[in-house]
């Protein structure tokens, strides 16, 4: 149950959370609800329900499933073609001899990426997101949950979630991962952090991929770093060429460090920066 209370303007209503603006200014200025018309309450039903609540509840279940099994889960996001699958191949080649890895592979229509990852001894669960109108552009928590049911969680230490290639939608959906990482390609251009700030804020790590192409491009790496720092000053970066293998060991070290944190019981961070209480 929420709590009823009265505003200065005489309106009365009920909800569970506090009014931040009430505390700050003593007014009933709209902060999380429309307070304009409660006198016609017979026709107006107050809802105050966050639209991502159901997704976030499922994400919490995923997080618990990972933690209960001591698994570090990383949500890997990027634009299409930035090199997520190539990086995953290189990662599996280095880690699967010693680390038990599961992969959740999101793709709109095909199993091409899952086929590229076969043969390394990792458990792969494909999520085909093509069921909706023209396919989903992201993985959400229920999709990941159904994919997890096909992974031997009790036998795994690391789950890499390869999200759908897209710089917008995946950033909006918490899937229950321990950390978010982004594969950014220098061919995407220096301005991308300013154009897709939600994505760049949603991750702890930005892999700067395809640096082997730098001699052939008019690309200003310092300008990219300035733009990234402007939207996410806390983001770590690794310069990489997944093709030549340059920087892949540093990425694997980052994963291993996060696995150690899980084993040591560090409480999981959300994989999204926008986890405000008003969501």
């Amino acid at each position, binding site marked *: 149950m929420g709590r009823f209370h009265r505003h200065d303007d005489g309106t009365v209503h009920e909800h569970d959370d506090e009014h931040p603006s009430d505390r700050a200014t003593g007014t009933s200025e709209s902060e*999380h*609800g*429309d307070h304009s018309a409660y006198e016609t309450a017979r026709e107006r*039903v107050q809802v105050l329900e966050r*639209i991502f609540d159901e997704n976030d509840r499922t994400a919490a279940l995923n997080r618990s499933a990972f933690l209960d099994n001591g698994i570090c889960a990383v949500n890997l996001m990027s634009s299409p073609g930035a090199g997520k699958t190539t990086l995953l191949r290189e990662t599996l080649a280095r880690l699967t001899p010693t680390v038990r890895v599961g992969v959740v592979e999101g793709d709109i229509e095909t199993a091409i990426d899952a086929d590229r990852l076969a043969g390394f001894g990792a458990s792969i669960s494909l999520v085909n997101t093509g069921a909706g109108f023209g396919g989903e552009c992201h993985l959400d928590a229920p999709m990941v949950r159904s994919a997890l049911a096909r992974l031997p969680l009790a036998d795994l230490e690391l789950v890499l979630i390869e999200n759908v290639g897209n710089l917008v939608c995946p950033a*909006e959906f918490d899937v229950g991962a321990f950390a978010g990482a982004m594969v950014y390609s220098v061919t995407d251009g220096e301005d991308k952090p300013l154009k897709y700030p939600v994505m760049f804020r949603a991750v702890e790590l930005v892999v700067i991929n395809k640096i082997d192409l730098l001699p052939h491009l008019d690309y200003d790496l310092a300008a990219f770093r300035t733009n990234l720092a402007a939207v996410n000053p806390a983001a770590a970066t690794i310069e990489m060429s997944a093709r030549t293998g340059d920087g892949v060991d540093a990425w694997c070290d980052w994963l291993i460090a996060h696995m150690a944190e899980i084993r040591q019981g560090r409480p999981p961070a959300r994989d999204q920066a926008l986890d*405000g209480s008003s969501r």
Partner: protein
Amino acid sequence: MHELSICGSIADIVRRHAADRQVETIHVQVGQLRQIVPDTLVYCWSLVSAETGLSGSVLAVESVRARITCHACGSTTEIDEFPVLRCGTCGGADVAVVAGDEFMITSLELAEV
């Protein structure tokens, strides 16, 4: 785009609150830091609600401006359109979002019974 699947979530919430009454307007708050395009959301709602019990209902989208507070100096800044979240007083980047990431259904307007 993700607006389409989001409209499915909206429909579930609306049906639960409206019971079987006819819904005229759904009031939705969208913070400016959300990558939800209001026009796209309204268009997708018309697709998702068509030929269902929610057909003809209208999404009324209220945009909420982003505000941050600075951990260094404590002041509050209202963010304009530029995506950089930086304190307007001291320029600090260690800030907390206090408004602008909302995405919720605030209320429904139901037809007279």
